[in-house]
């Protein structure tokens, strides 16, 4: 299975009648088992790009190659749970075919067992995020899309949740697309990093990480980050980088 993204442009017509370019030409592809990371400043058009890839926005120029039968699991920036359904119902509604054992396993990994019957309004943001993760994994997706799944969580919780995501992603062959502005998350979770420019977004650099995810220790991660930091700083000193 392969995801091909070839967006040649996306403009947005404002109420005042002006047109704004949101996306410059963006082209990349992902294979099954790969984790691609889109990194860019906030407001650069990452979410717009995701909406186009997910088929929520058809008003763009270009082409998205995605097998029509591919199942998508998505973790939105906000958890987007149904407030009037319990945690378990929220997961089951998105994944009606999930077997009880699998669901129990997911709830165990994400430490949600005690919250099965709670309503989303009774959960903290961290817990709600975990429910959203459980929902995305319960559908056994072919394509997993994570839009800033760790934003606005404290470091300790974000770290734990990140490890849980890594475990889940490694547990089955899935193509993952992660959107983040955190270099740390990108280096720890990604196989290939796509650095995006400010709006209109285009890919300024595509960086594959050679070391497999599960063998990356703290030292390797620090080294990769250091080399990337050097690189991005180098970009900034170039006068016509963007």
């Amino acid at each position: 299975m392969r995801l091909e993204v070839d967006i040649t442009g996306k403009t947005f017509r404002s109420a005042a009648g002006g047109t704004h370019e949101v996306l410059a030409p963006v082209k990349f592809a992902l294979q099954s088992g790969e984790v691609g990371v889109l990194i860019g400043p906030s407001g650069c058009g990452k979410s717009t790009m995701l909406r186009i890839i997910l088929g929520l926005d058809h008003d763009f120029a270009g082409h998205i190659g995605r097998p029509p039968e591919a199942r998508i699991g998505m973790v939105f920036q906000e958890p987007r749970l149904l407030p009037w359904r319990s945690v378990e119902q929220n997961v089951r509604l998105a994944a009606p075919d999930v077997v009880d054992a699998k669901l129990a396993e997911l709830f165990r990994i994400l430490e949600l067992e005690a919250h099965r019957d709670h309503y989303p309004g009774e959960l903290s943001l961290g817990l709600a995020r975990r429910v959203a993760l459980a929902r995305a994994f319960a559908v056994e997706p072919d394509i997993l899309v994570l839009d800033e799944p760790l934003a606005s969580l404290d470091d300790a919780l974000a770290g734990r949740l990140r490890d849980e995501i890594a475990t889940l992603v490694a547990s089955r062959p899935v193509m993952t697309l992660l959107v983040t502005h955190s270099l740390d998350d990108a280096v720890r979770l990604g196989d290939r990093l796509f650095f995006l420019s400010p709006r209109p977004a285009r890919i300024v650099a595509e960086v594959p990480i050679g070391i497999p995810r599960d063998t990356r220790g703290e030292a390797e991660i620090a080294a990769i980050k250091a080399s990337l930091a050097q690189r991005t700083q180098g970009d900034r000193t170039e006068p016509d980088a963007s």
Partner: protein
Amino acid sequence: MLRLLSFALFLAIWWIAALLVGGAKLPSPPAVLQVMIAEASSGALFLHLGATLARVALAFTLAMSLGSAIGYLMGRVKVADRLGDPWLILLLNLPALVVIVLAYIWAGLTEAAAIAAIAINKLPTAIVTLREGTRALDRSLDEMASVFAMPRWRAFRHVVLPQLAPYIAASARSGLSLVWKIVLVAELLGRPNGVGFEIGVAFQLFDTPRLLAYSLTFAAVVLVIETLLVQPFEARANRWRPRAA
């Protein structure tokens, strides 16, 4: 407890007023109760009440289902909204009396004409409320349903309908009170039975005890339906909301 107290206060004020004004204009509570019992034991009270309730049930169901469907459509589809809006404004501002009189003239003094006229009066408010509810639907949840490829019916039942439930409850409540009022006018003008007809007769005879007996029984039935049917539904629709909101 407070409700009971408030009811007792109402009875007390009525009784005192009756003593001050005199029995011909405002009969005392026991006098009205006497008429109620007499009408009930002859069966007339239940016959008329039943006829009125049947009309209310039919007209209300008709208006609610049709109005909800049209309102949802107008909230979702822009063209439908544009096309329907002038009709809606016309219907909203059309006096109930005009609709009832025209219905009787065009369709004869029939049951169908009465029910249709009552339903038409309720229809536009149901449409407006449901249209607002549909416009207020959370787009981000629609997107969630679409990304997770939820079948249309499941998405409607679990994503859309719970969001509309408070609007449906509000529309049911306001609609019911509107229908309660209009049904009596429709009966007064062109039906041979029902609470409205009886009130018309009582008015012609200046029979205040009878008038009050029928209207108060009617009000009591409305109150019971409100507390036993409408309020539980509202509570159920809002069950998931955090308490004390």
